[in-house]
């Protein structure tokens, strides 16, 4: 009897949980705005448009809100602003390129430029070691050493 009661309880619980998922329809209009908004469910790193986590407590109501505001004729910027007003700047999927946040976008470029600069410096430094086009003739000892090395390498290849 107890087992039956537990099973029944679980079934009821599951029946309540399974339908929890609201319809996850994403129209192109919702996707356009949702792509600019971060899903703040805390477990995924997607946007409101791309989050497909089951029963996501953030992206599903957010999509609903976008749809409602669009039906009211609000522009994309107004919709985004309403999310920012509600949840702060972290509502956006990427921070706006202003103030300190501009560093977020610049640093990867600075990193690449600095790396390129380092390579160019390295190449410039290496230039002084370049072998001249015309070189003095080899002495016999050097020549013998070269030949010995070539013979050794050729023997290995055979």
């Amino acid at each position, binding site marked *: 009897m107890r087992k039956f009661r537990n099973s029944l309880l679980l079934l009821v619980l599951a029946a309540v949980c399974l339908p929890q998922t609201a319809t996850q329809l994403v129209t192109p209009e919702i996707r356009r705005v949702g792509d600019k908004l971060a899903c703040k469910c805390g477990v995924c790193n*997607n946007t409101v448009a791309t989050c497909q986590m089951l029963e996501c407590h953030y992206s599903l109501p957010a999509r609903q809100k976008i749809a409602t505001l669009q039906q009211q004729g609000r522009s994309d910027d107004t919709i985004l602003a309403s999310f920012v007003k509600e949840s702060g700047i972290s509502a956006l999927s990427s921070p706006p390129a202003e103030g300190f946040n501009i560093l977020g976008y610049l640093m990867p470029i600075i990193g690449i430029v600095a790396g390129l600069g380092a390579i160019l410096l390295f190449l410039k430094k290496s230039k002084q070691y370049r072998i001249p086009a015309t070189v003095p003739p080899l002495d016999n000892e050097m020549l013998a050493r070269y030949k010995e090395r070539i013979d050794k390498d050729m023997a290995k290849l055979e």
Partner: protein
Amino acid sequence: MENLGALALILAFCLSIYAIAGSIIGKWKNKPFLVLSAERAVYSIWFLVATAVGILIHALVTGDFRLSYVAQNTNHAMPWYYKVAAWWGGQAGSLMLWAFVLSTYSAVVVYQNRRKFREMMPYVVTVLMVVQAFFLMLIAFVISPFNVLMQGKGIVDVGDGRGLNPLLQYWTMIIHPPILYMGYVGFVVPFAFAMASLITKQPGDDWIFTTRRWAIVTWFFQTTGVLLGAGWAYAVLGWGGYWGWDAVENASLLPWLTSTSFLHSVLMQEKKGMMKVWNMVLVSATFFLCIFGTTLTRTGLVSSVHAFAQSPIGVYFFTFLAVGIAATVYLILDRLDYLKSESHMESVISRESSFLFNNLILLASCFSILWGTLFPVISEAVTGEKISVDGPFFNRVNIPIGLFLLFLTGVGPLIAWRRSSIESLKKAFFWPVAVSLALVAGLMISGMRHPYALMSFGLCLFVTATVFGEFFKGAKAIRAKNGMNFIAATVELTHRNTRRYGGYLVHMGVVAMFIGFTGAAFNLDSTVEAAKGDSFKLGRYELKVRDISDSENADYVSRKAAIDIFVGEKQIDTLYPERRFYKASQQGTSEVAIRRQLNEDLYLNFAGANDPKKAVVQAYVFPLVSWIWIGFWILFAGTIVCLTPSKIRMQYARTEVVGIARNYAEIQK
């Protein structure tokens, strides 16, 4: 039993301290017996950690619910293999996995080198044991997996546990963490040899030659671990993606990028005696990024789906990182005189130069990912305002970087070591460039307009052409000389220099993966709420819901849809997406149904049901995604070839400056 397990860990910790002291004092005071004793302590540590692991697994499988760790991560309903996998399902167990893998590697290193590198080995053991002691300290004293549940002064058996997170109950999750850890932990070994080489002021490159295989094997484990995680996300999470730029995913990619960079740049050291400092930096960076990845998962510094609950161990990790990095930087700076290059770049148009750019691009990618991952924390600290840095940021930065890297993958084999003439470049580049441009033109004519996709497909063919060109030219020469048929000549060619041609195969694996990544530009999706008998269209498919049924077993209750797939009038398949609700953990999961094809995957997710007679179905078409997994198998084959000894022992004819150039260089100095 739990007392025995805890005692084994404490003893192992003590022995690791002994091994450190024995190695240093033995070397310092010239007492070989102490050094040998320290090495034997390494074997004992493995035995003790293995004992503790055995006790924990026994507790997990038999359901000893007096242990807090067992109660949190298993329950009676779980199959035995998931109970074993629960070993790394929680914080303490996963740290124990770290300690166990490291103790195994350490024992192998000590055994392999019992008669070699006697100068370096005490320091190799010291570095290995410092890392070992750190992890053993955490699991022996800070968050032991052998803690029992207490009520008042009595031990409590809770009868059943919460069970492993249902999302983790999938076959790749059984092997993903151990393989990833084998990759992460494995890089401790090249790092230990590198540090030992610096400490003992080794004049040569012994550490490079010794750890070459370690580096390749551990890199392969890292790659496999990352891809298994991607495969799991694709097949389990129900959102159809394989990469979400999650903080912990990023953390796993960072050491992979630096280790890939190391595997390339180490060739410069082997071949030309160049980049010695750089290789030290790369191997150290890889090791510390591995620790950093582990830190991110455990400190709650950034929010992540992978993160364990916040715990007090963050401070230990940050201290370890700070001290370790400081010591390494000091050591490298102090030994700069021993790391001077033996030769110099002779031309900008050379293989060496392409390696430099390869390193730059890999590190730029690493830096941008690290920056993007940490920027929310930095920004919040500076401005006091929280921000989000999500997928779009990472894609914007890393797609161009990835494409340039793909370009370099094709360019590298076409440029000679030392220098290439413009004429030879024209000759080498003509056909690969011509066929890739022809492909891009063809794709544009057929209507494709996505710029990154066009570039990616063009570059994929460019790299393929260069790699096939390399095999073709080599095999043709062997066939001309030995009269073999072409396939035998190709095998012979590969066997003669397995690292080079295995490396080309690895590049082909990367090309296949890029084809798969590029397919994402053409994804289709649709979400519908459909009742039995309803149908809807997605791309060329028509999907008809034939049935929706409920079922139950001891572990979960489920609702499943049977969806017939039609192309035109013809039914080609039936897929069964399912929604489950796990009783013990009270969590819902989705069992997605995937029809995998080479050209595209049809992916169905039972997202939910607002009405018992209807199903909310998310349907996706993912073009070319299977090529990612095919790419892995090509990469796997390439790695095996790389690890196979060459038929001809390639003693790198380091382009040592033996004659005129040396004289000239000396004059220049």
